[in-house]
């Protein structure tokens, strides 16, 4: 088929369709959003399957699991921290197994370009004892996705595809292969899918027995490659995923090519690792993310007579995204000559709220209402408004995980903070704030929650929000917030005085209040979208 220039995310989406995908679910999150966006952009007849934004990653996972139970091939994609939200169905689906192929795509963000941590999803695959693919490039992302669906059905487990930012958001050429047709409807066996203790114990034993087969599949996989240099027993290099590219980039500058092991599948291919380590004195382990293979190699007693180099020994940085320069240095090569640009540092240009953003007006009004209340704290959440923590607004004091603003304000209020304020966006509220608000409503906690309703998921590119408009107000009322303490404001400079007054009234109320700030996102408004 014709070669195409695709983002890594898009290569995965296209491969999923070509694998006979029947349903895809996701929640927006950088760097995973473009997987589902690619499917949604396709004309319906080319897509040929369900593709939908879910309310959160847990619902997305369960929707995909339901489609798999029905014998269809399903994909669920999310950013790395999204898998924390979906961890419950994820872990248990390793026991239910997959009737139709089930692919879990976790896109990690080492270096935290757009995330609150840089956790490594390969540990989740290991935790659940399932098989994981990690591509080093775009063609592999396509090919691994195709193979993952087959593996899922062959081994009766969900399969993880682990991406990292530089694969997800890099473009390159992919040559697709002939598509496969979709599976017919075929329900799973209830004895396997009903995880009563008696069934769960049996299914766990089956999963444990399967480990030997998974390891054998990994050791036989064409995505792993061992090349021993018979005339050099000094250095060996193990590189996983995208780190393989950075090693390759630097090889031509070395006098002698080290023995090399490329790893693209997990459980890590143990016999290949042993053959490499047996052949050399020193092993450099290059991994994008946490030192999973390096730690496995070191174990408690190390490898007698061998030196292991990597993120744990300091040859590579302990955190952050790898670069070709890091690998160059770890290979003891001199840095490339470069233009000397002179004085540093330069003025930084951090991301900021767009001109005319409704969040700015809401946070300005909140700042003014809180000015004469020194004991206050504003707990916030994940979204564009998190940028309100930076100057000039300096308006929020926490950002932890999706939905945490309301529950943390609840706990903060219980601990004595007055006023205790939460600031959360409409989509984040739908994702994980509703249950927190239900809890605060039951306790009638003395706190004020702001829900910033801009009608979209703005930070990730304007995807569908599920808790916006009149429906949002019904949810707030439905969880038990007293109607007289649900206030709607329109965040505009011309309403500033009135908004400050309304906010003060609700801060004064000794119980739960919700202030909904309603104004469309200036960047992704329906008018601009057309």
């Amino acid at each position, binding site marked *: 088929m014709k*070669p195409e*220039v695709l*983002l890594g995310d898009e290569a995965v989406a296209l491969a999923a369709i070509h694998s006979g995908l029947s349903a895809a679910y996701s929640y927006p999150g*950088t*760097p995973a*959003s*473009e997987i589902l966006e690619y499917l949604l952009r396709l004309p319906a007849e080319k897509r040929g399957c369900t593709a939908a934004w879910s309310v959160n990653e847990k619902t997305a996972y369960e929707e995909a699991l339901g489609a798999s139970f029905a014998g269809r091939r399903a994909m669920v994609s999310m950013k790395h921290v999204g898998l924390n939200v979906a961890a419950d169905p994820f872990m248990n689906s390793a026991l239910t197994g997959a009737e139709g192929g089930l692919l879990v795509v976790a896109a990690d963000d080492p270096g935290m*370009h*757009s995330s609150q941590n840089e956790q490594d999803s390969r540990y989740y695959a290991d935790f659940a004892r399932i098989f994981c693919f990690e591509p080093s490039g775009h063609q592999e992302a396509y090919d691994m996705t195709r193979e993952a669906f087959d593996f899922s059905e062959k081994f009766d487990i969900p399969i993880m595809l682990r991406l990292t930012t*530089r*694969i997800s*958001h*890099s*473009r*390159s*050429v992919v040559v697709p292969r002939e598509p496969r047709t979709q599976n017919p409807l075929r329900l799973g066996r209830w004895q396997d899918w009903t995880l009563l203790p008696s069934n769960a114990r049996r299914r766990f034993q089956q999963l444990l027995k399967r480990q030997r087969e998974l390891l054998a599949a990994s050791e036989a996989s064409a995505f792993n490659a061992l090349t021993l240099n018979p005339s050099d027993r000094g250095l060996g290099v193990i590189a996983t995923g*995208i780190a393989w*590219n*950075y090693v*390759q*980039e630097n090889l031509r500058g070395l006098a002698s090519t080290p023995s090399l092991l490329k790893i693209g599948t997990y459980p890590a291919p143990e016999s290949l690792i042993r053959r490499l380590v047996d052949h050399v004195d020193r092993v450099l382990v290059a991994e994008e993310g946490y030192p999973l293979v390096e730690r496995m190699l070191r174990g408690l007693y190390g490898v007698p007579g061998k030196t292991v180099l990597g993120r744990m020994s300091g040859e590579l940085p302990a955190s952050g995204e790898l*670069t*070709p*320069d890091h690998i*160059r240095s770890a290979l003891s090569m001199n*840095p*490339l*000559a*470069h*233009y*000397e*640009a*002179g004085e540093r540092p*330069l*003025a*930084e*240009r*951090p*991301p*900021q*709220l*767009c001109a005319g953003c409704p969040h700015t007006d809401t946070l300005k009004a909140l700042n003014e209402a809180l000015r004469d209340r020194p004991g206050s704290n504003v707990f916030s959440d994940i979204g*564009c408004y998190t*940028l309100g923590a930076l100057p000039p607004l300096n308006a929020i004091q926490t950002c932890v995980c999706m939905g945490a603003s309301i529950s943390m304000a609840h706990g903060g209020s219980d601990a004595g903070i007055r006023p205790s304020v939460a600031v959360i966006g409409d989509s984040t509220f739908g994702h994980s704030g509703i249950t927190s608000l239900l809890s605060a409503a039951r306790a009638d906690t003395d706190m004020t929650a702001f829900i910033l309703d801009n009608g979209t998921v703005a*930070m*990730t*590119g304007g995807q569908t929000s599920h808790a916006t408009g009149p429906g949002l107000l019904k949810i707030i009322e439905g969880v038990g917030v007293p109607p007289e303490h649900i206030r709607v404001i329109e965040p505009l400079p011309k309403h500033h005085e009135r908004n400050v007054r309304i906010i003060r009234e609700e801060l004064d109320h000794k119980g739960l209040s919700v202030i909904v700030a309603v104004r469309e996102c200036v960047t992704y408004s329906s008018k601009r979208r057309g």
Partner: protein
Amino acid sequence: MEGRSADKQDIILAGVGGQGILSIAYVIDRAALDEGLHLRQAEVHGMAQRGGAVQSHLRLSSGTIFSDLIPRGGADMILSVEPLEALRYLDSLAPTGVVVSSSTPYRNIADYPDLGNVLERLRRVPRHVIADSEKLAKEAGSSRAQNIVMLGAASPFLILKEDSLLRHIENLFKPRGANLVDINIKALRLGRAAAGV
């Protein structure tokens, strides 16, 4: 013309979120594909796009390209729609590389440095092209075409034919109307003339 004999070109595209550097990348990518080159292009999405510094590593080669990221000292060109952003990546430039930058500042930060000093530092690079992208884009018909002006200013140094670039500017802007196609083609030509090569 300079650079034409090379079989690889590593470019760092820079600018501020919203200035359209991914459109520059789109045109170069498609042109490179037409000319049978391999390409890799690493982008920044998500939070950083909100008015922050954005960059894209774009690598073209007639041979295999391994890394998505350009090593420090490996860039043959810095192509920036904003002068402070050009300065930010100068350390990545090869000693023989060329910097192609707009002289029009995007001042959305309080501590934007002295513009004269920024431009002076860019002019110190032995091979440089500094173009007034705002003026030229307005002359072409829209101040939003500054990105394509800068692509034009870089075009004499690219290992790509001007015709391939023009074809994909047309493909990119055609869905948004014939007028925008004309404006951007004019922007490319004005930028190219400004390079004075």
